[in-house]
């Protein structure tokens, strides 16, 4: 399957997860996407999966505490200034599970896109806003680069006998990693200019044409979105 068709399918699944109202439907979409993600053999798989799942779990924990919904109270907690009484209802738990599953599904769709698709070919297929598409492709590639920089930095600090532990230990690495990525961005911009990026008259290397299976995937993608709106 061509990357464009696969990307359309992933986008459709993410859209269906956002549009669907039933927890079972959203959970099934998330499970399907998780299976797809597990097909990736990339060394970055674990990091991407954590990035996709942890925010969803955090949302599941916070949602019932921050929302005020429903009457079937399961737990009633203390009163907190500004937020009010911390209580958890069945309806809030249900809403938390639905929204957490939506967030996880979207994260997993991005993970599959990042780990399994050929972004270069996607870029080549874009005929409008090519610069924006390239920026998106570079941003996707930035994730593993940032991960490598963060690991390198943590290793350098540990190499001096300083432990990098806990949230606080890792948080102090954030600023230097961002500073390093800005430096990288400047170097990359220089290299791109030297390689003729932005020059008039650019051509594109020929890519294989779409086949029947790719068109079918596009049709399925549309059907998935429609199903998400009407039935899921």
């Amino acid at each position: 399957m061509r990357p464009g068709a696969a990307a359309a399918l992933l986008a459709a699944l993410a859209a269906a997860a956002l549009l669907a109202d039933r927890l079972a439907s959203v959970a099934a979409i998330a499970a399907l996407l998780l299976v797809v993600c597990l097909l990736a053999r990339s060394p970055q798989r674990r990091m991407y999966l954590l990035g996709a799942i942890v925010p969803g779990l955090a949302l599941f924990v916070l949602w019932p505490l921050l929302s005020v919904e429903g009457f079937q109270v399961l737990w009633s907690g203390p009163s907190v200034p500004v937020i009010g009484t911390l209580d958890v209802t069945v309806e809030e738990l249900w809403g938390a599970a639905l929204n957490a599953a939506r967030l996880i599904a979207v994260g997993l769709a991005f993970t599959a896109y990042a780990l399994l698709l050929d972004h270069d070919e996607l870029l080549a297929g874009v005929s409008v806003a090519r610069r924006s598409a390239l920026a998106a492709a570079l941003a996707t590639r930035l994730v593993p680069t940032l991960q490598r920089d963060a690991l390198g930095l943590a290793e350098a600090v540990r190499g001096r006998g300083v432990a990098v532990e806990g949230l606080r230990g890792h948080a102090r690495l954030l600023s230097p990693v961002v500073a390093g990525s800005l430096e990288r961005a400047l170097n990359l911009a220089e290299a791109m200019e030297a390689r003729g990026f932005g020059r008039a008259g650019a051509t594109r290397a020929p890519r294989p044409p779409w086949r029947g299976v790719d068109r079918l995937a596009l049709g399925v993608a549309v059907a998935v979105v429609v199903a998400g709106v009407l039935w899921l």
Partner: protein
Amino acid sequence: MALTRVDQLSFTYGGATAPAVTDISFELAEGEVVALLGPSGSGKSTILRALAGLVPHFHGGTFRGCAVVDGRDTRTARPADLAGSVATVFQDPEDQVVMTIARNEVAFGLENVGVRPDEIWPRVERALAEVGARHLALRRTTELSGGELQRVCLAGALALRPTLLLLDEPTSQLDPDAAHVFLERVAATGANVVLSEQRVARALSVATRVLFVEDGRLLLDAPTDAAREWLAAHRPLYAEDMLFTDKATVPSDPVATLEELWFSYADRDPVLRGVSLEVRRGEIVTLEGPNGSGKSTLAKLAAGLLDPQRGVVRRFGRAGYLSQDPGRYLACERVVDEVALGVGGDAARALRALDEVGLGWAAKRHPRDLSSGERERLGLAAVLVGEPDLLVLDEPTRGVDPERKAELAHSIVRYAASGRGVLLATHDRSFPAARRVSLGGPRELGEARVAA
């Protein structure tokens, strides 16, 4: 007829107080391979940038004189317009890769300069074959090693069939054999080549002419043979590969023993299979071997940054580790804090360590305001300040000029002589060592053998 002409070139970067280069003039004739030599920060990269048009167009600053490349004045021709005639391979391959798949990376430049679509893939394949990287064509660029990326970047430059090829330390991440083959292939392209390189012997082996720059001024412009004589007389450290001798004390107790270590990354084949090694106090041990042979992995195991899957590591004291490219991995906002980080914030000790590497003046500056060479020294100070019993250094001479390399070698010999052990993973065979341990290629690993 001169293909490239630089006339009275002076350039000061925006915000800088001193010019990076001053009154540089030279001409390049067709087919010349020019070695551009000089200490770190002497202006070599600025000259390459001027030839690519990046100075003044990309880097703001004050530009005087002119550079004419392939008949075009770089003051009016932008770098993107020069691309194709001029191709540049920058120092750090990780900072110049745009695409996800290696062969698309090579095609990127061809697409930009408007090569006919039906010509692009054949040229990509030929260029990858020329640099011995055909097998990398479909690999993801994020999963390639530094040496592999350097080859892909060179393929991207060669595919353009440039008339002027600019190479900024293109072999810094390659082992000696791979670097030799790499440069021979570059010389065989027939393009006009300007090669900035800190491994001087390597550059002189392919160069037809030498330019030597110091403090932004061109001190020498001569054919290679004459240049060798000049270097021997005026800059002896550049004249030949230094062969340092280890005058450390007689090795005594072990500071680390590694027994039957096995290690593999994720689901891959083992990088190390049953490797044993001992480092004693007072000695310097180097780990040598081709790219991918497991030098860095063994160094990290010795320093305690990785745990072996099988085998035992014993350390008798504290270990300190200096990573490859330490200038990239700086964690603090001030130079003095960067060094003090390893000693619980002890600024007095940090200042002493900075003085030892000649960076006392920069204590209050931001680490990223320092030049690449200064950052390397800062990284060394940040590790040495803790006075580890076992000092582990990973490729400490990468991108380091001969004079700094000599200083580094003396520092390390002194450090070992003070009763500590030093373990170096390096491609640099000229570095001092009591023992040299050779690791095989990634597919022929079985044991570490003591080579000398």
